[in-house]
């Protein structure tokens, strides 16, 4: 009985999250775009000319129905990969994304070996 309530609550609490996922959050996009003429600020945080222009263009693209990914691809094509804070997952950047998890798995493997030694004795 306890477990049934447990599972029901679990499912209910997770189904509520769908509402906020589908709307494109322009602020989230702004936070991911780098201001090219500032020293380490996103266009969400900067009020420079460049930031304002990009905000206008991004808002236009959202109205046109473009997805977040398409917007980033557009900007990368025009300004290079440096303009987005989340490096796209391509061949060049694969090492960046994979290496941390590889290390994690490697560490886990080492610990597993260490613990296994006891069984062998």
């Amino acid at each position, binding site marked *: 009985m*306890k477990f049934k309530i*447990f599972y029901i*609550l*679990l499912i*209910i*609490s*997770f189904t*509520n*999250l769908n*509402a*906020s*996922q589908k709307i494109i959050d322009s*602020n989230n996009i*702004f*936070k*991911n775009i*780098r201001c090219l003429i500032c*020293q*380490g*600020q*996103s266009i*969400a*945080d900067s*009020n420079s*000319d460049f930031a*304002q222009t990009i905000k206008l263009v991004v808002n236009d693209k959202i109205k046109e129905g473009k997805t977040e990914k398409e917007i980033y691809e557009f900007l990368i094509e025009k300004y*290079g*990969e*440096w*303009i*987005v*804070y*989340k*490096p796209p997952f391509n061949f*060049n*950047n694969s*090492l*960046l*994304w994979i*290496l*941390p*998890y590889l*290390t*994690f798995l490697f*560490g*886990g493997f080492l*610990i597993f070996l*260490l*613990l296994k*030694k*006891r069984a062998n*004795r």
Partner: protein
Amino acid sequence: MLSNLGNLILFITIFISFSIIYFSIVNLKDEKSVLKKNIYQLCLIQCTLIILTFFILVSAFITSDFSLITVYQNSHTLKPLLYKISGTWGNHEGSLLLWLIILTIFSFLFLVYNSSHPKNYRLYTLITQNFLILGFLFFLIFNSNPFSLLSPTPKEGLGLNPILQDPALAIHPPLLYVGFVGSSIYFSAAISSMLTNYAGKPFAQSIKNWVLISWSFQTIGILAGSIWAYYELGWGGFWFWDPVENASLLPWFAMTALFHSIMVLEKRELFYFWVIILCIMTFILSVTGTFLVRSGILNSVHTFANDPSRGLYILLFLSFLIFSSIFILFRKFQVSNYKINSNSKETFVLINNWFMIFYLISVLIGTVYPIFTEVLTNHKVSVGPPFYNTVIIPLVVLFLIFMSIGPNIRWINNNNINLNLLLKIFFASILINYLIIYFFKSYSLLSNFIIISSIFLIISTFLDLYKSLNKRSFNLSRLTSHLAFGFMVFFIGLNHNFSFEKDFNLKLGEKKEFEDYTIEFENINLEEFKNYKSVIGKFNINNNSKDLNLVLSPEIRIYENPSTLTYEASIRSGLMKDYYITMSNIDRSEFYNIKFQKKPFMIWIWISVIFISLGGLMRLFKNEKKNY
């Protein structure tokens, strides 16, 4: 005059440092186990001289002695006194003196407090530490000398960047330096331990308090930096995964892993070489961080003014440290035979270390990856918050759960984990999470996991607290830090999901209405202060459904020396939430760009971090009491 005095004292300090090394080597060969008195005296003189040099520089700043280049470049007669003083270490050259203060003081104090440990171990530590001191002395005197003269003496200085004129930022470097510069002493101790084969429990006892001190201060130092970023930088956030921030976080991960492993080394005589590696890693990460920040190799908000020769020197010093450490390590490394029961506290310490190293590697890779792509492929990439959040946060969930279970496990062998209790706590966490969603707002799947696992940790720790009140073994320090960590993640999770931000343009006299809020741009005032002029906007913020009537006054400050504009946020901090507003002018337009934010639980995030650090200090205090 001050310049000559300063340089003279620095040269004397070089001489003293060489003497310390010389006398230590002589004392090493002495068969008696007594450490010569003159070595103590020389160490005391060494740190006194450095402190004296530091005060000479401070007085130069207070009196605005512009004959010194450093004072000229970083100060101004109109600057408030507090910031004249903090300007001493707010620049590259002055901060190196701060490095030296910590290096020498820790060197002397470690020598004194370790009197119950073998003479040779203490001497080798001293020798290694003095090599570090000499390295920095040479760097300071010959490359980045704060006493360099400027001729003719200018009448006025260039001033200190106004965003650095803030109390949190004034204490941020001293706090951080006790942290990561302090790690130099256990680096030296680790080298010494290998050279003298002084291992196991006694070694752990020798360094454990030093690791705790540096860790606690590092925690508070990082907090001070985040508080400054939140109140002063005006974007409403407190962590940007900027290279300079990451540089302070990397040693923190290593230190956390270290003091947990030291517990195991002390109690069970296990993981000796791993502790050595962590000691070396912490200091090397500290110097790497310094290199990344000061060499200009990375683009960052916080960059110091750049000079390529600095980077070269620090890199050479860093490589020397790395290669000599691994050389000694290769020579001395021995594989040990461990018997570790998988159901024991040692395993959970290993798990802690495993996660800490993962966080460390993730942040390190993210920070230096742009350098590698640029050198190897001539291609520039940015690695920012989305990368770190995506990579790290999912595993924090797992980490929190391990943190809840681990401390209850006994050393060596634990008969059974109380699965029933764990399930009950898990159930309660899900219930509380559901209540939060039901009454407030729902959030992403990942956030659900984060909130649930942080509540899980919080409840488990409270239960621990309750149980241990009845027993004699009361580990208040661990309970405090772990509980505070759980709360910190909990509040950060809620803050992230329940914050909102509205970015809009407004003209004077206009109103903006959205949801239930009305923001009225009532008026603008121009006021003059000692070293700046301020354009202060008055905003009336009303929300009828929440019975909110607030007046906030963000500013645009116009400084002359140096000529900069800063945007000061107006923040109303409360127990439940902060209201945050910034105003910036738009070129060639009558409109002002307004950013209005509501940020829940900010104060509780700060308080949680303070308590994390407090746990470390509590443990330190307990350790010291045990010695009497």
